[in-house]
């Protein structure tokens, strides 16, 4: 079983765009190069770094395009109208939204509405979980993991015993 914090840890590798207010040369991280940083010039950095810089008031975060009321409303409608799982904007949409809404709410237009829409989307998908697996995000899989795997384990035992 995976701890939700570990799923969040994986999501923190996703790239987001920030607008730094400082300048610095390229950083040579083990996981790859980042930068250079120039005041006012947007660039992509991993989420963990974006949140840290934001906390230290060294940047503004440009929320991903999908984190917008209109897009999310369309997405929510699409999900509602469909019997299966629609593809999501980003496989880690839930974790990214949570991190950005917690640490950079002031950078997100209509943060409250965005928050409500993301929650609706999550709820609609959670209700569908009893059906198919494609397009599911890791956080979603994690919520049904023990139930689904154990049920199938038991069915396999029953099947083998009846043969």
């Amino acid at each position, binding site marked *: 079983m*995976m701890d939700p914090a*570990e799923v969040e*840890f994986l999501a*923190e590798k996703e790239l987001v765009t920030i607008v730094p207010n*400082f300048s*610095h*040369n*390229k*950083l*040579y*991280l*083990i*996981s*790859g*190069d980042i930068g250079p940083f120039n005041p006012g010039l947007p660039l992509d950095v991993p989420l*963990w*770094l974006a949140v*840290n810089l934001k906390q230290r008031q060294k940047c503004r975060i440009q929320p991903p395009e999908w984190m917008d009321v209109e897009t999310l409303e369309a997405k929510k409608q699409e999900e509602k109208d469909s019997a299966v799982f629609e593809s999501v904007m980003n496989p880690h949409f839930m974790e990214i939204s949570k991190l950005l809404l917690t640490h950079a709410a002031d950078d997100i237009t209509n943060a409250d509405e965005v928050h409500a829409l993301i929650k609706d989307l999550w709820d609609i998908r959670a209700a569908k979980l009893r059906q198919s*697996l*494609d397009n*599911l995000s*890791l956080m979603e*899989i994690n919520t049904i*993991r023990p139930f*689904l*795997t154990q049920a*199938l*384990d038991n069915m*396999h*035992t029953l099947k*083998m015993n009846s043969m």
Partner: protein
Amino acid sequence: MAALDESYDEEHEGSEDEVEMTAAEALSKLEEAWLNEKFAPDLLETKADLVDCMLEQIQQMEDNLKRCKKGDMRILIHKMEIDRIRFVISSYLRLRLEKIEKFHEEILHRESGRKEEDPLLLSEQELSFAKEYSQSVKEHAKVLVLNHLPQNFQKLDREKTAPKPDLDQHVFLKANRNQDQVLIEPELEDDPSAEVVDLVKDSQYIMRFRPLVPLVTDGAVSLI
């Protein structure tokens, strides 16, 4: 060796490894091994080479950071990254130790039957841990119970008593490439009604671990 203002990507190329790999690639391979190990009911092949490679990278990075001036903003950022990598390494090693403790008898038995050309199941340190652990458990069982039983009950039969991993557990997986005609009921090999599935790249599935073992080993699927 390398200074902080050199790319780690270029620097690691040409190491003693057979396959040339950048530090970033090694890291993502290790992260994948971590997740596979986390979700597999059985102990997978050791990826000690990746762990060693990352530890070396961390060591180098820390040496470089020592030479940085106080207040250099790079220190904090590099330290955060190092912490993230350390977390993956320790979680990976801990997961393996947990499985080794649980299945020590079975794993040592498998290790002793391993041929020279087979891939390593345990790292050197894991092997000596498994042996010591197994020795202690046996000693403990002897002193506490077995010595007090009648002579003919004093032996422990590995086949009957040692816990074995349950390969029939179901796991979630994601296909890394298209894979046709995967036999998912190996017990029914000769039966024409045995079920086969075609795995489609990037699709997600849930199925029994047993038939997936070779696919996990060669990276055709990742456990999620």
